């Protein structure tokens, strides 16, 4: 059975109204044939079918409004026969309701499949009502997914497994981001002479264990700047922007074995620098030992990536969906700088960038945000509150 679903006919189309069917049940349909006319927000559009077959049932009614992806019609492929339906007067079997359409998977099976990386879709269930059981998962895990063309390597070591899984997760999130989020980018060079001088003085009077890194100052400044530009802090959900209740900075932490995780520094704007530094150190350490809390993994409202003193000049990041912005910092380095009265100096400078979701904000606001960030970093003592 081929399912013909309402296609997305434009980036901004979420739904459509069926105006006309161009076929009726029993008609043969060729690839590319226009079979329906659908009204979208912009215009009436001819809808083509990209599969061949014979129309079995027209599910959608004329005048019906449907979301993109809704089932409109079913087609029978060549050689396929219609499934038997209950005739008139033929009662549905009494007793327990028909098994639900959802696949039945036991909780233990689902959990174990995830641990083993087994795809549940390819497992036939043998439990009650055909549910996939733990045993089914174990059996499936023992058999390779596809008939192997070459000898299968032995099951990967757990560490490699994990790295591969992480790569997969990053791939999925970043692909989705680039597919769905219309990014724009702005950048700003920010002189850090005052900030670093203040930091040196501050660190000189602190014990080693309480020393602050420039990263803490940058994060605090981002959090403060976000208070004035809340449209950069939050999520894109269900077709709209949902502002974050607090400012939870996702801090991109690269792992030594490759990959990265961006756990959240919760409520960063409200925390004094010393606390922020301690939490940052703790977060980095736990990220690397793999003992993060789920709230830290889920609750970031924006991501900050900091390539640090080993990194490049600047970085233009990919937004982590459903977040709507990412702030990047490049390497802090001495660069020539023209100051207000026209003099040329060598100063430590960092390039800050913003990648943001154009559905939520515009470049102008993004630029203002970076200006605010630059301004805040000129008054480091005020960030220490």
């Amino acid at each position, binding site marked *: 059975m081929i399912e013909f679903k309402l296609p997305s006919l434009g980036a901004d189309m979420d739904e459509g109204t069926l105006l006309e069917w161009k076929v009726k049940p029993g008609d043969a349909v060729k690839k590319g044939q226009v079979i329906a006319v659908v009204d979208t927000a912009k215009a009436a559009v001819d809808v083509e079918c990209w599969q061949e077959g014979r129309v079995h049932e027209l599910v959608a009614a004329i005048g019906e409004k449907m979301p993109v992806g809704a089932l409109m019609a079913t087609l029978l492929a060549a050689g396929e026969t219609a499934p038997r339906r209950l005739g008139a007067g033929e009662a549905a079997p009494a007793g327990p309701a028909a098994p639900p359409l959802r696949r039945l998977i036991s909780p233990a099976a689902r959990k174990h499949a995830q641990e083993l990386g087994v795809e549940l879709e390819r497992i036939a269930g043998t439990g009650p009502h055909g549910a996939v059981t733990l045993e089914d998962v174990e059996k499936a895990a023992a058999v390779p997914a596809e008939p192997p063309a070459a000898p299968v390597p032995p099951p990967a070591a757990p560490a490699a497994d994990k790295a591969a899984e992480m790569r997969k997760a990053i791939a999925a999130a970043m692909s989705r981001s680039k597919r769905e989020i219309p990014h724009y980018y702005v950048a700003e060079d920010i002189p850090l002479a005052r900030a670093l001088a203040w930091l040196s003085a501050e660190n000189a009077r602190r014990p080693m264990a309480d*020393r602050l890194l420039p*990263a803490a100052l940058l994060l605090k400044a981002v959090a403060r700047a976000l208070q004035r530009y809340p449209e950069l802090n939050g999520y894109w959900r269900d077709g709209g922007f949902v502002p974050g209740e607090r400012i939870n900075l996702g801090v991109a932490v690269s792992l030594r074995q490759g990959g990265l995780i961006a756990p959240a520094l919760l409520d960063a704007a409200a925390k004094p620098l010393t606390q922020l530094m301690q939490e*940052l150190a703790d977060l980095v350490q736990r990220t690397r030992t793999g003992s993060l809390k789920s709230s830290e993994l889920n609750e970031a409202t924006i991501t900050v990536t900091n390539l*640090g*003193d080993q990194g490049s000049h600047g970085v233009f990041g990919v937004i982590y969906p459903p977040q709507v912005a990412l702030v990047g910092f490049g390497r802090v380095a001495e660069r020539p700088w023209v100051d207000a009265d026209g003099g040329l100096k060598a100063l430590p400078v960092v390039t800050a960038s913003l990648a943001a979701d154009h559905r939520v904000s515009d470049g102008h606001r993004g630029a203002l945000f970076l200006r605010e960030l630059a301004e805040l970093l000129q008054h480091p003592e005020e960030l220490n509150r």
Partner: protein
Amino acid sequence: MMTEEEARDVVIETLKNIAPEIAHEDLRHDRPLRYQVDLDSMDWLNFLLGLNKRLGIEIPESDYSRLITLDDVVDYLLSKVG
């Protein structure tokens, strides 16, 4: 008193706590350490904190510029402890 040998051992051991994957024999002792081992600023701070804990020496930020290679670090420690 600490011998150079002992100082070097302490440095390597502390480093391994931060970056367990490093192979001692691959390290060039006269080349910048942070590029060889890929230490970010947090790692670097933790490395120095580790030395501070083991040896009880305070390392002011102003001395960071003297600590580039593994040899530099060993010399620095010896000068502080010795």
